[in-house]
């Protein structure tokens, strides 16, 4: 059943290529770390976006920088979903896979990441390895995949690359871009532009050898493979940008007019600070890498206290360390924006993988009553705008605003409309004008709890900020009643903010059999699943929440119009199928817990912690089973 390299190539070659028109495909490129699969994938995604296809790319990242070569857990690469229309999520299993070795391939296959019968383009140099162990393992893997029904095409990539360059190990990835460009009818001019851009710093010689590799890959595919796809691209009618969510957070920080970001390295949040570090000083900003997460938050709070609202960017374990300072921000009413790019938890958990497990700790994690605002971007575009919004809210309500992004948004790439700069995004210069005599640091408004803050340098504003319970004039509370009163004002602020929120929209009909409620990065997958199910007449709709604390008015009324309400989330919840789990002890997913508590509606949930973005196909299947 299995074919050798020459047989495969010949077999494919003898047939003339037939062009298949498709609506979308998921392509995956995987290798050992450092072999360039990520670069190839990103380049392929960017080229496709530039041609006007809808695109979503996901990084496949192993936990270590250089895990052992040829290991099933070591896959590094990129998954690119390309569509004829707008793409809002990573999609389902892969249709076509390029793999630089058999072992990373087996790992991904075992994780259920490939469609049945998917095409696999496999580096076949392992057949000719000197070590018999590698050869036999390779042949076994190859045969197993063929037996499972995958269409495995073996390509001796290194041998082909050696025909154009001296060191085939470097540059094999661009050879692969050439193959894919042929298979997917990519515009070679755009690919060449991307190559020139990518290797600009390395000089003409490197650019040329990569262009040669591109051509070699393209020509090899043209001569040897019969597969050809065309994914219609509607073209780009308006200027767009394509980036990942962390870059969007970095640009949002610049656009917000904040000028201090304090951080400590933590996966998967750090890359936001990488890009910010590159450009922040050009606009007069500072990225401060502190000695630890706590110091980063303290530094940001100090900067906020003495000037414009500042930002700190972290992930779950970092947010845990900052907890006490989050309390101080709330207690002393110092504005602060905190971005938590969520990863799998608890503890060190799954550092490179997605989870939405920090919602409850973001809302409730601070000891004592600490009302704060928690919001979640649902798209990469949202990552940009949410920082601008959060800065404004933080300053207006003298509040802590937590933005819950996640690893899926952080590393996924998506195109969105190029933002048009508006001066109103920017924080105004620090007000140093004298305050009226007798100004109180916390002149709480009786109805809303809101007050204006004094900034060092302001005449008549002298006060000592304290995390101790304090009166409106900032004096340490020595009488009972002060804490009750000040707690009330801090809580009222949240209510005042809540009054400004719009009721979320429902996708699908406003009533029906099932309402799916989601938050954060799962929006695209949920809505796609809902639309697929609706095409078959199922009465399912969805609603996505941007503000999780406080929640907008009208949510109860929306939920009441459906026979069943459930959340879909990437966090852990108990399964009633487990023998000792029942309604008395079942632990619900984060959002389901909140909705049940607030609205007294029997909200169900479907959630898991596989560390993967939710697949629309899996959600669709779940919807169908619930509506049977």
């Amino acid at each position: 059943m299995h074919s050798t390299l020459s047989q495969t190539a010949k077999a494919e070659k003898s047939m003339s290529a037939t062009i298949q028109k498709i609506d979308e495909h998921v392509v995956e490129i995987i290798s050992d770390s450092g072999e360039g699969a990520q670069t190839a994938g990103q380049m392929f995604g960017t080229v496709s976006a530039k041609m006007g296809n809808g695109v979503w790319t996901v990084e496949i990242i192993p936990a270590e920088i250089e895990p052992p070569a040829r290991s099933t857990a070591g896959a590094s690469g990129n998954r690119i979903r390309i569509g004829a229309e707008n793409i809002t999520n990573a999609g389902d299993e892969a249709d076509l896979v390029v793999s630089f070795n058999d072992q990373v391939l087996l790992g991904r296959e075992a994780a259920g990441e490939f469609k049945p019968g998917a095409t696999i383009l496999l580096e076949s140099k392992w057949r000719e390895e000197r070590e018999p162990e590698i050869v036999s393992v390779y042949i076994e893997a190859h045969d197993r995949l063929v037996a499972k029904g995958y269409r495995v095409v073996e390509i001796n990539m290194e041998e082909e690359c050696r025909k154009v360059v001296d060191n085939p190990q470097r540059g094999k990835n661009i050879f692969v871009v050439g193959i894919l460009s042929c298979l997917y009818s990519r515009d070679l001019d755009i690919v060449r532009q991307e190559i020139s851009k990518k290797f600009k710093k390395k000089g003409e010689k490197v650019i040329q050898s990569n262009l040669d590799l591109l051509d070699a890959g393209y020509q090899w595919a043209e001569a040897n493979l019969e597969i050809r796809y065309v994914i219609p691209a509607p073209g780009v009618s308006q200027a767009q940008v394509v980036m990942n969510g962390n870059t969007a957070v970095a640009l949002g920080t610049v656009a917000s007019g904040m000028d201090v970001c304090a951080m400590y390295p933590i996966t998967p949040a750090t890359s936001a600070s990488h890009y910010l570090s590159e450009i922040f000083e050009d606009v007069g900003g500072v990225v401060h890498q502190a000695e630890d997460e706590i110091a980063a938050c303290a530094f940001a709070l100090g900067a906020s206290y003495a000037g414009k609202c500042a930002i700190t960017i972290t992930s779950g374990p970092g947010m845990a360390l900052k907890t006490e300072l989050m309390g101080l921000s709330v207690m002393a009413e110092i504005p602060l924006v905190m971005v938590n790019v969520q990863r799998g938890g608890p503890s060190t958990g799954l550092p490179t993988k997605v989870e939405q497990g920090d919602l409850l700790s973001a809302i409730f994690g601070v000891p004592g009553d600490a009302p704060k605002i928690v919001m979640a971007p649902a798209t990469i575009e949202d990552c940009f705008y949410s920082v601008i919004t959060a800065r404004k809210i933080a300053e207006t309500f003298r509040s802590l605003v937590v933005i819950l992004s996640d690893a899926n948004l952080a590393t996924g790439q998506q195109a969105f409309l190029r933002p048009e700069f508006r001066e109103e995004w920017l924080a105004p210069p620090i007000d140093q004008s004298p305050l009226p005599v007798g100004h109180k640091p916390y002149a709480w408004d009786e109805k809303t709890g809101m007050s204006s803050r004094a900034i060092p340098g302001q005449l008549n504003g002298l006060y000592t900020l304290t995390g101790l319970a304090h009166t409106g004039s900032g004096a340490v509370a020595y009488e009972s009643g002060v804490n009750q009163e000040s707690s009330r004002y801090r809580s009222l602020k949240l209510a005042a903010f809540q009054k400004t929120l719009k009721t979320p929209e429902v996708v699908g009909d406003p009533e029906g059999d099932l309402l799916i409620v989601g938050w954060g990065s799962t929006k695209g997958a949920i809505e796609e699943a809902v639309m697929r199910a609706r095409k078959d007449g199922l009465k399912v709709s969805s609603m996505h929440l941007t503000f999780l604390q406080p929640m907008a008015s009208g949510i109860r009324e929306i939920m009441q119009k459906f026979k069943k309400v459930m959340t879909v989330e990437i966090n852990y919840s108990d399964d009633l199928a487990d023998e000792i789990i029942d309604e008395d002890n079942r632990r619900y997913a984060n959002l389901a817990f909140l909705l049940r508590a607030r609205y007294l509606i029997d909200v169900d949930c479907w959630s898991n912690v596989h560390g993967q973005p939710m697949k629309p196909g899996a959600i669709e299947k779940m919807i169908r089973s619930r509506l049977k």
Partner: protein
Amino acid sequence: MFGLKSESVLKLDQEYHELDEYQGKESRWCPGCGDNGILAATQRLCRDEQLAPEKTVFVSGIGCAARFPHYMGTYGFHGLHGRALPVAQGVKIRRPDLDVFVNMGDGDCCSIGTAHWIHAIRTNMKMVVMLHDNNIYGLTKNQASPTTPQGRITSTTPYGNLLKAMNPLTVTLGVTNVSFVAQVVEWIPDLLYKVLREAYNHKGLAFVRILQRCPHFMPTAWDQLLSNPDKIAVMDSPDGVQLSDATAKIYKTRVAHDSSDLNAARQVASLEDEVPVGILYRNEMVPTYDELRRPQRLPEPELTEEILNRSFDRFGIFPSTSSKAGD
């Protein structure tokens, strides 16, 4: 001074500030607490340097000493246990126009805040850091601190403190970029004031350890020094502080010391039989982080727009490039 509305920035030379302007709320420290003397010396320093109260920020953590900002007539930030230094750095980073002071106890600085202490020394931002060292946790009532002497009975060491006390001077002098280290005792007001004034005028982070009496929990801690002034070794350095005649008569032990010599400073700091006071080390040439991070440009909306557009170009997809798209 970045991003301030320039038209309303405080004019510094408009009036003379009297001593009582620097008095905040009335002190609630115990009678006889050494913190009162430190407060008085600091207020005098502010008056003599004519610091604008609105342009002065006292930052502290938690503990008895950390109440300090409340008792100053300036802006203050009484934050979290151990976290005064990173807060002070944040205050300073975009506001070089503010004078920043930090007050911490030995628990605050040398125990829960140790990481920040080490890194703040290395970062060397311009500020005065006062370590109020009374060798004990006071506010939480009599627990051993990192500087509590070995053998000392406290609430948490009922059979005597097993560990030898940490020496904050040698630790500080061991950190890369250290630029100013001094030690004083609060019961010599003349010396305390003069050292604080030198610290204030230092370009960089000035670390001043102040041995401080806690009459409530450590009433006998400094008895040997108080009864035998010869145990206090005054650093005699050409650029050091000069004692007044009255003080000089009491404190006769002098050590010739070159405060620009880091190794000499480390040696003096390690003295066990005597307590060195004065400026142990001073180096005005160490780069400060506030200077290193000083933005080259002021934030302007036009600039932000330009930089954002440059980024959008970098990640951009334009209608013209899609002419050959698709089928």
